[in-house]
Protein backbone atom coordinates (compact mmCIF):
# COMPACT_ATOMS: atom_id res chain seq x y z
CA UNK A 1 0.00 0.00 0.00
CA UNK A 2 2.81 2.39 0.93
CA UNK A 3 4.46 1.67 -2.41
CA UNK A 4 2.04 4.03 -4.07
CA UNK A 5 3.35 7.61 -4.00
CA UNK A 6 -0.19 9.01 -3.92
CA UNK A 7 -1.00 6.92 -0.87
CA UNK A 8 2.16 8.11 0.89
CA UNK A 9 1.33 11.72 -0.04
CA UNK A 10 -2.22 11.38 1.27
CA UNK A 11 -1.06 9.92 4.58
CA UNK A 12 1.57 12.65 4.92
CA UNK A 13 -1.04 15.34 4.27
CA UNK A 14 -3.45 13.90 6.82
CA UNK A 15 -0.68 13.55 9.40
CA UNK A 16 0.21 17.22 9.10
CA UNK A 17 -3.48 18.23 9.14
CA UNK A 18 -4.07 16.32 12.39
CA UNK A 19 -1.10 17.94 14.15
CA UNK A 20 -1.88 21.38 12.76
CA UNK A 21 -5.54 21.38 13.87
CA UNK A 22 -5.29 21.66 17.68
CA UNK A 23 -2.13 23.78 17.46
CA UNK A 24 -3.76 25.99 14.83
CA UNK A 25 -6.71 26.63 17.14
CA UNK A 26 -4.33 28.04 19.76
CA UNK A 27 -2.54 30.07 17.09
CA UNK A 28 -5.91 31.61 16.15
CA UNK A 29 -7.18 32.12 19.73
CA UNK A 30 -3.92 33.66 20.90
CA UNK A 31 -3.46 35.72 17.74
CA UNK A 32 -0.12 34.11 17.00
CA UNK A 33 -0.61 33.82 13.23
CA UNK A 34 2.38 35.97 12.43
CA UNK A 35 4.40 34.14 15.06
CA UNK A 36 3.68 30.87 13.25
CA UNK A 37 4.72 32.44 9.99
CA UNK A 38 8.01 33.72 11.42
CA UNK A 39 8.88 30.33 12.87
CA UNK A 40 8.10 28.61 9.59
CA UNK A 41 10.13 31.08 7.52
CA UNK A 42 13.13 30.61 9.78
CA UNK A 43 13.06 26.90 8.98
CA UNK A 44 14.48 27.56 5.50
CA UNK A 45 17.68 28.63 7.24
CA UNK A 46 17.59 25.28 9.03
CA UNK A 47 17.18 23.52 5.69
CA UNK A 48 20.25 25.30 4.29
CA UNK A 49 22.34 24.47 7.36
CA UNK A 50 21.34 20.82 7.37
CA UNK A 51 22.19 20.47 3.66
CA UNK A 52 25.57 22.12 4.27
CA UNK A 53 26.30 19.87 7.25
CA UNK A 54 24.76 16.81 5.61
CA UNK A 55 22.35 16.18 8.46
CA UNK A 56 18.63 15.44 8.42
CA UNK A 57 16.52 18.31 7.08
CA UNK A 58 13.93 17.58 9.78
CA UNK A 59 16.53 18.00 12.53
CA UNK A 60 17.95 21.21 11.07
CA UNK A 61 14.55 22.76 10.54
CA UNK A 62 13.41 21.72 14.02
CA UNK A 63 16.42 23.27 15.75
CA UNK A 64 16.28 26.55 13.84
CA UNK A 65 12.48 26.84 14.19
CA UNK A 66 12.82 26.26 17.91
CA UNK A 67 15.61 28.84 18.21
CA UNK A 68 13.51 31.33 16.28
CA UNK A 69 10.44 30.78 18.43
CA UNK A 70 12.47 31.06 21.64
CA UNK A 71 14.14 34.25 20.40
CA UNK A 72 10.74 35.80 19.73
CA UNK A 73 9.52 34.75 23.18
CA UNK A 74 12.61 36.25 24.76
CA UNK A 75 12.48 39.57 22.91
CA UNK A 76 8.74 40.13 23.32
CA UNK A 77 7.93 43.10 25.48
CA UNK A 78 11.41 44.61 25.27
CA UNK A 79 10.77 47.80 23.39
CA UNK A 80 9.43 46.71 20.02
CA UNK A 81 5.83 45.90 19.19
CA UNK A 82 5.30 42.21 18.60
CA UNK A 83 4.43 42.55 14.93
CA UNK A 84 7.45 44.76 14.21
CA UNK A 85 9.71 42.25 15.90
CA UNK A 86 8.17 39.37 13.97
CA UNK A 87 8.39 41.32 10.72
CA UNK A 88 12.10 41.84 11.25
CA UNK A 89 12.84 38.28 12.35
CA UNK A 90 10.59 36.41 9.88
CA UNK A 91 11.83 38.15 6.79
CA UNK A 92 15.47 38.29 7.78
CA UNK A 93 15.42 34.58 8.63
CA UNK A 94 13.93 33.83 5.22
CA UNK A 95 16.45 36.09 3.49
CA UNK A 96 19.44 34.63 5.36
CA UNK A 97 18.11 31.17 4.61
CA UNK A 98 17.87 31.88 0.88
CA UNK A 99 21.35 33.42 0.83
CA UNK A 100 22.75 30.46 2.77
CA UNK A 101 21.21 28.03 0.28
CA UNK A 102 22.92 29.88 -2.60
CA UNK A 103 26.33 29.16 -1.01
CA UNK A 104 25.70 25.45 -1.34
CA UNK A 105 27.29 25.35 -4.79
CA UNK A 106 28.28 21.72 -4.53
CA UNK A 107 24.73 20.44 -4.28
CA UNK A 108 22.00 21.36 -6.71
CA UNK A 109 18.87 21.65 -4.67
CA UNK A 110 15.38 22.43 -5.72
CA UNK A 111 14.50 25.45 -3.59
CA UNK A 112 10.88 25.31 -4.67
CA UNK A 113 10.56 21.94 -2.93
CA UNK A 114 11.32 23.55 0.43
CA UNK A 115 9.37 26.75 -0.14
CA UNK A 116 6.17 25.10 -1.36
CA UNK A 117 6.61 21.47 -0.33
CA UNK A 118 7.20 18.31 -2.30
CA UNK A 119 4.51 16.03 -0.95
CA UNK A 120 4.60 13.65 -3.91
CA UNK A 121 8.22 12.81 -3.09
CA UNK A 122 7.48 11.73 0.50
CA UNK A 123 9.40 8.55 1.30
CA UNK A 124 8.55 5.85 3.81
CA UNK A 125 11.10 7.36 6.18
CA UNK A 126 9.58 10.82 5.74
CA UNK A 127 6.18 9.33 6.51
CA UNK A 128 7.50 7.81 9.73
CA UNK A 129 8.99 11.14 10.79
CA UNK A 130 5.80 13.05 9.88
CA UNK A 131 3.52 10.70 11.83
CA UNK A 132 5.97 10.50 14.71
CA UNK A 133 6.10 14.30 14.93
CA UNK A 134 2.34 14.65 14.53
CA UNK A 135 1.70 12.13 17.30
CA UNK A 136 4.11 13.99 19.55
CA UNK A 137 2.40 17.34 18.89
CA UNK A 138 -1.10 15.97 19.48
CA UNK A 139 0.02 14.19 22.66
CA UNK A 140 1.78 17.32 23.95
CA UNK A 141 -1.20 19.59 23.34
CA UNK A 142 -3.66 16.98 24.61
CA UNK A 143 -1.66 16.62 27.82
CA UNK A 144 -1.54 20.39 28.46
CA UNK A 145 -4.97 21.13 26.94
CA UNK A 146 -6.82 22.53 29.97
CA UNK A 147 -3.82 24.45 31.26
CA UNK A 148 -3.19 25.92 27.79
CA UNK A 149 -6.83 26.89 27.48
CA UNK A 150 -6.86 28.59 30.88
CA UNK A 151 -3.65 30.48 30.11
CA UNK A 152 -5.11 31.52 26.75
CA UNK A 153 -8.24 32.93 28.38
CA UNK A 154 -6.43 35.00 30.98
CA UNK A 155 -2.94 34.83 32.48
CA UNK A 156 -4.09 35.84 35.94
CA UNK A 157 -6.79 33.15 35.97
CA UNK A 158 -4.03 30.69 35.13
CA UNK A 159 -1.76 31.91 37.93
CA UNK A 160 -4.64 31.72 40.42
CA UNK A 161 -5.17 28.08 39.39
CA UNK A 162 -1.49 27.29 39.91
CA UNK A 163 -0.65 27.28 36.20
CA UNK A 164 2.41 29.12 34.91
CA UNK A 165 1.36 30.77 31.61
CA UNK A 166 5.00 31.17 30.54
CA UNK A 167 5.55 27.44 30.76
CA UNK A 168 2.41 26.82 28.69
CA UNK A 169 3.70 29.29 26.11
CA UNK A 170 6.86 27.19 25.86
CA UNK A 171 4.78 24.07 25.27
CA UNK A 172 3.08 25.79 22.34
CA UNK A 173 6.44 27.01 21.04
CA UNK A 174 7.84 23.49 21.08
CA UNK A 175 4.72 22.08 19.38
CA UNK A 176 4.98 24.78 16.73
CA UNK A 177 8.63 24.00 15.98
CA UNK A 178 7.88 20.28 15.61
CA UNK A 179 4.92 20.99 13.34
CA UNK A 180 7.00 23.29 11.15
CA UNK A 181 9.72 20.67 10.83
CA UNK A 182 7.35 17.89 9.77
CA UNK A 183 5.23 20.09 7.50
CA UNK A 184 8.10 21.40 5.32
CA UNK A 185 7.99 18.37 3.04
CA UNK A 186 4.19 18.59 2.74
CA UNK A 187 3.36 22.25 2.17
CA UNK A 188 6.73 24.04 2.37
CA UNK A 189 7.81 26.86 4.68
CA UNK A 190 5.71 29.53 2.98
CA UNK A 191 2.40 27.72 3.42
CA UNK A 192 2.77 26.07 6.84
CA UNK A 193 1.01 28.93 8.59
CA UNK A 194 -1.90 28.45 6.18
CA UNK A 195 -2.31 24.84 7.31
CA UNK A 196 -2.37 26.03 10.91
CA UNK A 197 -4.77 28.92 10.54
CA UNK A 198 -7.20 28.18 7.73
CA UNK A 199 -8.73 24.89 9.00
CA UNK A 200 -9.05 26.34 12.53
CA UNK A 201 -10.66 29.54 11.28
CA UNK A 202 -12.99 27.54 9.03
CA UNK A 203 -14.06 25.41 12.00
CA UNK A 204 -15.06 28.41 14.13
CA UNK A 205 -18.64 28.91 12.87
CA UNK A 206 -19.39 25.20 13.40
CA UNK A 207 -18.13 25.01 16.98
CA UNK A 208 -19.62 25.62 20.41
CA UNK A 209 -16.66 24.51 22.51
CA UNK A 210 -12.87 24.68 22.12
CA UNK A 211 -12.68 20.88 21.88
CA UNK A 212 -15.20 20.67 19.05
CA UNK A 213 -13.34 23.42 17.18
CA UNK A 214 -10.11 21.41 17.30
CA UNK A 215 -11.88 18.26 16.08
CA UNK A 216 -13.70 20.05 13.27
CA UNK A 217 -10.43 21.74 12.25
CA UNK A 218 -8.76 18.31 12.06
CA UNK A 219 -11.59 17.11 9.81
CA UNK A 220 -11.40 20.15 7.54
CA UNK A 221 -7.61 19.86 7.32
CA UNK A 222 -7.80 16.18 6.39
CA UNK A 223 -10.49 16.78 3.76
CA UNK A 224 -8.38 19.60 2.32
CA UNK A 225 -5.39 17.25 2.06
CA UNK A 226 -7.44 14.53 0.34
CA UNK A 227 -9.28 16.80 -2.08
CA UNK A 228 -6.24 19.02 -2.71
CA UNK A 229 -4.05 16.05 -3.67
CA UNK A 230 -6.76 14.66 -5.93
CA UNK A 231 -7.14 18.08 -7.59
CA UNK A 232 -3.38 18.35 -8.04
CA UNK A 233 -3.40 14.98 -9.77
CA UNK A 234 -6.34 15.79 -12.05
CA UNK A 235 -5.39 19.35 -12.97
CA UNK A 236 -1.62 18.82 -12.78
CA UNK A 237 -1.17 21.66 -10.25
CA UNK A 238 1.43 21.90 -7.44
CA UNK A 239 0.23 19.70 -4.56
CA UNK A 240 0.97 21.85 -1.47
CA UNK A 241 -0.67 25.01 -2.81
CA UNK A 242 -3.63 22.94 -4.06
CA UNK A 243 -4.25 21.64 -0.52
CA UNK A 244 -4.18 25.19 0.83
CA UNK A 245 -6.56 26.35 -1.94
CA UNK A 246 -9.10 23.70 -0.96
CA UNK A 247 -8.85 24.70 2.72
CA UNK A 248 -9.36 28.35 1.73
CA UNK A 249 -12.46 27.48 -0.32
CA UNK A 250 -13.91 25.51 2.61
CA UNK A 251 -13.19 28.49 4.86
CA UNK A 252 -14.99 30.86 2.48
CA UNK A 253 -18.00 28.56 2.10
CA UNK A 254 -18.38 28.00 5.86
CA UNK A 255 -17.95 31.70 6.67
CA UNK A 256 -20.63 32.70 4.19
CA UNK A 257 -22.94 29.92 5.44
CA UNK A 258 -22.34 31.05 9.03
CA UNK A 259 -23.16 34.67 8.19
CA UNK A 260 -26.33 33.66 6.34
CA UNK A 261 -27.42 31.48 9.24
CA UNK A 262 -26.91 34.17 11.90
CA UNK A 263 -28.66 36.82 9.83
CA UNK A 264 -31.71 34.62 9.23
CA UNK A 265 -32.01 33.67 12.90
Amino acid at each position, binding site marked *: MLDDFMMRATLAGIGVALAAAPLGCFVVWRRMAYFGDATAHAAILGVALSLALSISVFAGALVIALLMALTVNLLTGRGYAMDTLLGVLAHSALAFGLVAVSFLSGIRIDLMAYLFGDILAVSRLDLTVIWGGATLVVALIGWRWSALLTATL*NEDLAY*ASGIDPKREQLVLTLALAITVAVAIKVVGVLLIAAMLIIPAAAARPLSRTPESMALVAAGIGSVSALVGLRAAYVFDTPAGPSIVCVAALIFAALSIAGKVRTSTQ
Partner: protein
Amino acid sequence: MSLVCVDDLSISYGAKAVLSHVSLRIEPGEIVTIVGPNGSGKTSLLRSIIGAVKPARGRVTRGSNLRLGYVPQRLHIDPTLPMTVARFLALPGRAARTIIDGALAQAGVPNLLNAQMSRLSGGQFQRVLLARALIGKPQLLLLDEATQGLDQPGSAAFYRQIETVRRDTGCAVLMISHELHVVMSASDRVICLNGHVCCEGTPEVVASAPEYRALFGSGTMGALALYRHDHDHGHDHHHDHTETAE
Protein backbone atom coordinates in the same frame (compact mmCIF):
# COMPACT_ATOMS: atom_id res chain seq x y z
CA MET B 1 -3.58 30.51 61.17
CA SER B 2 -3.74 33.22 58.53
CA LEU B 3 -4.71 32.29 54.97
CA VAL B 4 -2.28 34.78 53.48
CA CYS B 5 0.61 36.67 55.07
CA VAL B 6 2.14 39.57 53.20
CA ASP B 7 5.40 40.65 54.82
CA ASP B 8 7.12 43.89 53.96
CA LEU B 9 6.17 43.51 50.29
CA SER B 10 7.65 45.84 47.68
CA ILE B 11 6.83 45.59 43.97
CA SER B 12 8.31 47.59 41.16
CA TYR B 13 7.91 47.56 37.39
CA GLY B 14 11.29 48.56 36.01
CA ALA B 15 12.42 51.58 37.97
CA LYS B 16 8.89 52.49 39.01
CA ALA B 17 7.94 51.36 42.52
CA VAL B 18 4.24 50.58 42.82
CA LEU B 19 4.16 49.13 46.33
CA SER B 20 6.58 49.56 49.20
CA HIS B 21 6.70 47.87 52.60
CA VAL B 22 3.17 46.50 52.58
CA SER B 23 2.30 44.01 55.30
CA LEU B 24 -1.09 42.44 55.87
CA ARG B 25 -2.78 39.22 56.88
CA ILE B 26 -6.03 37.68 55.79
CA GLU B 27 -7.81 35.55 58.41
CA PRO B 28 -10.35 32.82 57.61
CA GLY B 29 -13.88 34.03 56.99
CA GLU B 30 -13.31 37.80 56.99
CA ILE B 31 -14.24 40.26 54.26
CA VAL B 32 -11.41 42.70 53.62
CA THR B 33 -11.67 45.54 51.14
CA ILE B 34 -8.77 47.41 49.61
CA VAL B 35 -9.50 50.97 48.60
CA GLY B 36 -7.15 53.47 47.02
CA PRO B 37 -6.81 55.85 44.10
CA ASN B 38 -5.87 54.73 40.58
CA GLY B 39 -2.26 53.55 40.38
CA SER B 40 -2.07 52.94 44.10
CA GLY B 41 -0.96 49.33 43.62
CA LYS B 42 -4.25 47.58 44.48
CA THR B 43 -4.22 45.23 41.50
CA SER B 44 -0.47 44.57 41.89
CA LEU B 45 -1.08 43.51 45.49
CA LEU B 46 -3.80 41.07 44.42
CA ARG B 47 -1.68 39.75 41.56
CA SER B 48 1.24 39.15 43.92
CA ILE B 49 -1.08 37.08 46.13
CA ILE B 50 -2.06 34.82 43.20
CA GLY B 51 1.61 34.54 42.21
CA ALA B 52 1.44 36.55 38.99
CA VAL B 53 3.91 39.23 40.15
CA LYS B 54 7.26 38.54 41.75
CA PRO B 55 8.02 40.74 44.75
CA ALA B 56 11.07 42.98 44.50
CA ARG B 57 11.38 42.71 48.28
CA GLY B 58 9.57 40.98 51.09
CA ARG B 59 7.37 37.96 50.58
CA VAL B 60 3.87 36.62 50.20
CA THR B 61 3.14 33.43 52.11
CA ARG B 62 0.04 31.43 51.34
CA GLY B 63 -1.29 28.78 53.71
CA SER B 64 -0.32 25.31 52.56
CA ASN B 65 -2.72 24.00 49.90
CA LEU B 66 -4.71 27.22 50.10
CA ARG B 67 -7.63 27.09 47.68
CA LEU B 68 -7.95 30.42 45.86
CA GLY B 69 -10.89 31.70 43.86
CA TYR B 70 -10.02 34.64 41.65
CA VAL B 71 -12.38 37.00 39.84
CA PRO B 72 -10.37 39.24 37.50
CA GLN B 73 -11.08 42.87 36.78
CA ARG B 74 -11.92 42.23 33.17
CA LEU B 75 -11.87 39.11 31.05
CA HIS B 76 -11.77 39.40 27.30
CA ILE B 77 -12.59 36.21 25.46
CA ASP B 78 -11.37 36.34 21.88
CA PRO B 79 -14.35 36.01 19.51
CA THR B 80 -12.54 33.18 17.71
CA LEU B 81 -12.69 31.09 20.89
CA PRO B 82 -16.03 29.27 21.24
CA MET B 83 -16.83 28.73 24.92
CA THR B 84 -19.98 27.61 26.66
CA VAL B 85 -20.60 28.59 30.27
CA ALA B 86 -20.40 24.92 31.29
CA ARG B 87 -16.96 24.47 29.69
CA PHE B 88 -15.66 27.73 31.10
CA LEU B 89 -16.76 26.88 34.62
CA ALA B 90 -14.92 23.57 34.61
CA LEU B 91 -11.56 25.08 33.58
CA PRO B 92 -8.80 24.24 34.20
CA GLY B 93 -10.08 20.77 35.07
CA ARG B 94 -13.31 18.95 34.68
CA ALA B 95 -15.97 19.40 37.35
CA ALA B 96 -19.01 17.26 38.15
CA ARG B 97 -22.31 18.55 36.85
CA THR B 98 -23.78 18.91 40.35
CA ILE B 99 -20.85 21.10 41.45
CA ILE B 100 -21.26 23.30 38.38
CA ASP B 101 -25.00 23.67 38.95
CA GLY B 102 -24.39 24.46 42.60
CA ALA B 103 -21.83 27.17 41.82
CA LEU B 104 -24.11 28.80 39.25
CA ALA B 105 -26.98 28.84 41.75
CA GLN B 106 -24.68 30.25 44.43
CA ALA B 107 -23.59 33.03 42.08
CA GLY B 108 -27.24 33.80 41.30
CA VAL B 109 -27.29 32.70 37.66
CA PRO B 110 -28.82 29.22 37.35
CA ASN B 111 -29.92 28.02 33.89
CA LEU B 112 -27.05 29.60 31.97
CA LEU B 113 -25.20 26.32 31.53
CA ASN B 114 -25.40 26.01 27.77
CA ALA B 115 -25.14 29.71 26.86
CA GLN B 116 -22.11 30.96 24.91
CA MET B 117 -19.91 33.26 27.02
CA SER B 118 -20.00 35.85 24.25
CA ARG B 119 -23.80 36.13 24.52
CA LEU B 120 -23.89 37.02 28.23
CA SER B 121 -24.76 40.47 29.56
CA GLY B 122 -22.17 42.30 31.69
CA GLY B 123 -23.89 41.29 34.93
CA GLN B 124 -24.31 37.66 33.91
CA PHE B 125 -20.68 37.51 32.79
CA GLN B 126 -19.38 38.75 36.17
CA ARG B 127 -21.59 36.25 37.99
CA VAL B 128 -20.31 33.43 35.81
CA LEU B 129 -16.77 34.53 36.71
CA LEU B 130 -17.82 34.41 40.36
CA ALA B 131 -19.35 30.95 39.85
CA ARG B 132 -16.09 29.72 38.33
CA ALA B 133 -14.14 31.07 41.29
CA LEU B 134 -16.53 29.17 43.62
CA ILE B 135 -16.16 25.80 41.84
CA GLY B 136 -12.95 24.90 43.65
CA LYS B 137 -14.56 25.60 47.07
CA PRO B 138 -12.11 28.42 47.82
CA GLN B 139 -10.95 29.34 51.29
CA LEU B 140 -10.11 32.77 49.96
CA LEU B 141 -12.01 34.62 47.27
CA LEU B 142 -10.14 37.44 45.51
CA LEU B 143 -12.13 40.03 43.58
CA ASP B 144 -10.51 42.78 41.53
CA GLU B 145 -13.13 45.45 40.86
CA ALA B 146 -15.49 42.68 39.96
CA THR B 147 -18.40 45.04 39.37
CA GLN B 148 -16.75 47.22 36.76
CA GLY B 149 -19.26 48.00 34.03
CA LEU B 150 -22.28 47.16 36.18
CA ASP B 151 -24.80 49.83 37.13
CA GLN B 152 -25.37 50.82 40.75
CA PRO B 153 -28.21 48.36 41.51
CA GLY B 154 -26.29 45.64 39.67
CA SER B 155 -23.13 46.08 41.69
CA ALA B 156 -25.03 46.42 44.97
CA ALA B 157 -26.76 43.13 44.21
CA PHE B 158 -23.40 41.58 43.29
CA TYR B 159 -21.84 42.53 46.62
CA ARG B 160 -24.87 41.23 48.53
CA GLN B 161 -24.26 37.96 46.68
CA ILE B 162 -20.68 37.99 47.97
CA GLU B 163 -21.94 38.39 51.53
CA THR B 164 -24.31 35.48 50.99
CA VAL B 165 -21.48 33.34 49.62
CA ARG B 166 -19.35 34.16 52.63
CA ARG B 167 -22.21 33.31 54.98
CA ASP B 168 -22.90 30.00 53.21
CA THR B 169 -19.34 28.81 52.60
CA GLY B 170 -17.35 30.61 55.28
CA CYS B 171 -14.67 31.67 52.80
CA ALA B 172 -12.62 34.80 53.35
CA VAL B 173 -12.97 37.57 50.77
CA LEU B 174 -10.33 40.07 49.69
CA MET B 175 -11.65 42.61 47.23
CA ILE B 176 -10.77 45.81 45.49
CA SER B 177 -13.41 48.33 44.65
CA HIS B 178 -13.94 51.91 43.65
CA GLU B 179 -17.50 51.88 44.92
CA LEU B 180 -16.58 52.79 48.44
CA HIS B 181 -20.04 53.25 49.85
CA VAL B 182 -21.31 49.88 48.58
CA VAL B 183 -18.20 47.93 49.42
CA MET B 184 -17.31 49.36 52.78
CA SER B 185 -20.73 48.55 54.15
CA ALA B 186 -20.09 44.88 53.44
CA SER B 187 -16.56 44.75 54.86
CA ASP B 188 -15.20 43.65 58.19
CA ARG B 189 -11.97 45.46 57.55
CA VAL B 190 -10.81 48.12 55.10
CA ILE B 191 -7.25 48.72 53.95
CA CYS B 192 -6.54 52.05 52.37
CA LEU B 193 -3.66 51.74 49.94
CA ASN B 194 -1.61 54.36 48.14
CA GLY B 195 1.72 52.74 47.31
CA HIS B 196 1.85 51.81 50.99
CA VAL B 197 -0.80 51.08 53.61
CA CYS B 198 -2.17 54.52 54.58
CA CYS B 199 -4.54 53.30 57.20
CA GLU B 200 -6.62 50.25 58.02
CA GLY B 201 -9.33 49.10 60.37
CA THR B 202 -13.10 48.80 60.49
CA PRO B 203 -14.98 50.82 57.86
CA GLU B 204 -15.82 53.50 60.44
CA VAL B 205 -12.23 53.86 61.60
CA VAL B 206 -10.88 54.14 58.05
CA ALA B 207 -13.58 56.53 56.91
CA SER B 208 -12.73 58.95 59.70
CA ALA B 209 -8.95 58.59 59.38
CA PRO B 210 -7.21 61.75 58.19
CA GLU B 211 -5.15 59.75 55.64
CA TYR B 212 -8.31 58.39 54.08
CA ARG B 213 -9.97 61.80 54.00
CA ALA B 214 -6.89 63.28 52.39
CA LEU B 215 -7.28 60.79 49.55
CA PHE B 216 -11.05 60.69 49.12
CA GLY B 217 -12.21 63.96 50.66
CA SER B 218 -14.56 64.34 53.57
CA GLY B 219 -17.58 65.44 51.56
CA THR B 220 -20.19 63.19 50.05
CA MET B 221 -17.75 60.33 49.60
CA GLY B 222 -16.86 60.31 53.28
CA ALA B 223 -20.50 60.30 54.30
CA LEU B 224 -21.34 57.59 51.78
CA ALA B 225 -18.40 55.54 52.91
CA LEU B 226 -19.82 55.48 56.42
CA TYR B 227 -23.13 54.12 55.25
CA ARG B 228 -23.79 50.66 56.57
CA HIS B 229 -27.07 49.00 55.89
CA ASP B 230 -27.40 47.35 59.29
CA HIS B 231 -28.36 50.74 60.68
CA ASP B 232 -29.70 53.99 59.22
CA HIS B 233 -32.51 52.75 57.04
CA GLY B 234 -33.60 55.00 54.27
CA HIS B 235 -34.22 58.46 55.63
CA ASP B 236 -31.35 59.99 53.83
CA HIS B 237 -32.03 60.97 50.23
CA HIS B 238 -28.33 60.59 49.36
CA HIS B 239 -28.75 56.85 49.41
CA ASP B 240 -31.84 56.34 47.31
CA HIS B 241 -29.93 54.57 44.57
CA THR B 242 -28.47 52.03 46.97
CA GLU B 243 -31.82 51.22 48.45
CA THR B 244 -33.69 50.72 45.22
CA ALA B 245 -31.27 47.91 44.67
CA GLU B 246 -32.09 46.23 47.95
